[in-house]
């Protein structure tokens, strides 16, 4: 009897969560309909015009889609040379050693730092460096945001890919050593190829995080609405344009922001699905 009630309760909660999800998607879709109807779906995502002037209001998402993809992929590229060595260190070279545990916990600590703190640090400490280097007079922009984003995703990428590296069966590594390989040879020919798809999936998940990251990027990207022309240009990502403009938006502009939100949701969902799929195949 109690078992039945408990089961019903669980089912009820699950249904509730699904309903909330469905409700969210529904409101995103219905909120964005007027923007899509006004400009057409493909024109909306293909246009880089963002003009809120009441007489000639036009909105297009291209600048922000480009801003998002640029910052995220740059961040991913910057993060690989740091996260891969960390992953190899904790997952292979020093697997199970105190030093590896120590490093992993420091990395986990990094993962727990709130986005706003990264933003602050980027704003007050890192931005002046960019200015001093003469890359950009204000220090804001795509490059600045990408580097901070890279630091933010290093923990995810390294702990996840370290996990996959440590899952490479010992018997394969022993077989490789027994053929006379050095540590480097074994990593190169056996460990990395065998962990390859898992590592790839880890980076896709990290990319997913970078795509949606809002606070730090909003503080550092410079908040301009044109298509970025170079890496030191300012811009906006899909997340940061919403964060910057939702407060004073209504009508068509609000609908356009919601549409951008829906697109972002779609992109991250697809990215995460791909990563999950690869990981499933890996196991």
């Amino acid at each position, binding site marked *: 009897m109690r078992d039945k009630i408990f089961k019903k309760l669980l089912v009820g909660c699950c249904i509730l969560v699904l309903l909330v999800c469905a409700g969210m998607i529904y409101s995103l879709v219905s909120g964005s309909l007027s923007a899509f109807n006004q400009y057409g779906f493909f024109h909306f995502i293909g246009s880089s015009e963002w003009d809120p002037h009441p007489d000639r209001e036009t909105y297009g998402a291209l600048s922000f889609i480009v801003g998002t993809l640029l910052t995220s992929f740059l961040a991913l590229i910057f993060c690989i040379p740091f996260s891969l060595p960390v992953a190899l260190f904790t997952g292979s070279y020093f697997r199970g050693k105190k030093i590896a545990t120590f490093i992993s916990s420091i990395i986990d600590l990094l993962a727990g730092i709130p986005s706003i703190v990264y933003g602050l640090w980027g704003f007050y400490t890192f931005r002046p460096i960019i200015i001093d280097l003469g890359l950009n007079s204000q220090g804001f922009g795509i490059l600045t945001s990408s580097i901070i984003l890279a630091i933010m995703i290093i923990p995810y990428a390294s702990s996840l890919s370290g996990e996959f590296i440590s899952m490479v069966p010992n018997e*394969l590594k*022993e077989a490789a*050593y*027994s*053929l*006379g390989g050095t540590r480097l*040879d074994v990593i190169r020919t056996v460990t990395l*190829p065998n962990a390859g798809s898992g590592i790839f999936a880890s980076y896709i998940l990290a990319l997913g995080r970078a795509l949606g990251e809002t606070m730090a990027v909003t503080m550092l990207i410079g908040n301009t609405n044109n298509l970025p022309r170079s890496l030191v240009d300012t811009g906006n990502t899909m997340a940061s344009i919403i964060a910057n403009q939702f407060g004073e938006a209504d009508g068509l502009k609000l609908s356009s922001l919601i549409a951008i939100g829906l697109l972002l949701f779609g992109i991250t969902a697809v990215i995460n699905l791909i990563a999950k799929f690869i990981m499933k195949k890996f196991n």
Partner: protein
Amino acid sequence: MEQEHIQISNPILQLKDVSISYSPGKNAVKNVSADIARNKITAIMGPSGCGKSTLLRAINRMHELYPDIKIMGEILLDGKNILKMNPMEVRRMAGMVFQRPNPFPTMSIFDNVVAGYKLNGISLGKSEKEEIVERCLTNVGLWNEVKDSLFKKGTFLSGGQQQRLCIARALALKPDVLLMDEPTSALDPIATNRIEELLLDLKNEFSIVIVTHNMSQAARISDYSMFMYLGELVEYDTTQTMFTNPKDKRTNEYLSGQFG
């Protein structure tokens, strides 16, 4: 302690007072001394936990992957103390085949055979590779079975074929000695039989040390047999003598199935 074992002339391997411990003060292998014959099959038998794998793995210095393992004594391969050599070189000279077939799953059959070269950073020409692959797969009786699917993954093969692939992979580096740790214990009788026949062929070219739990296997294929018990080498003799006229009570009890 000094044990009197069989004398081998011109041995390929010489173990001199070898002791190995996983933790200080507790030796898993105790003062083992033995010479191992060239171009013969030497079987190591003994109940579970007696140190067979530990001893075998020390011969190609696998123990060094685990820093807690300490080894004392000398192991001479062709007269040279392997413990003083470069471990990568030792491992090329002493090929190892493991209990469970472990072909590299990301590599094709072809690449598995030449994996040793890739791992050692030796680049071979295409025709050299093809020659090695054909020779080694022929050596292990796999050539006719896989010659049309050389570029498929090795993991699609049956267990017995995979194990023969692993033997081919070890042979490709032309080792002086082939170390095998229960290479057939994960295989069915037919696959086991094929590997046994293969080993009898291979001993013309290689010296083989095989750990086995299977006494009839030792009797069928080995020329010399060791019996280990609690880390000690209790008895070492020709297989014939060992099975017909064991000198030690413990050997006799083990061979007659009273423990193990």
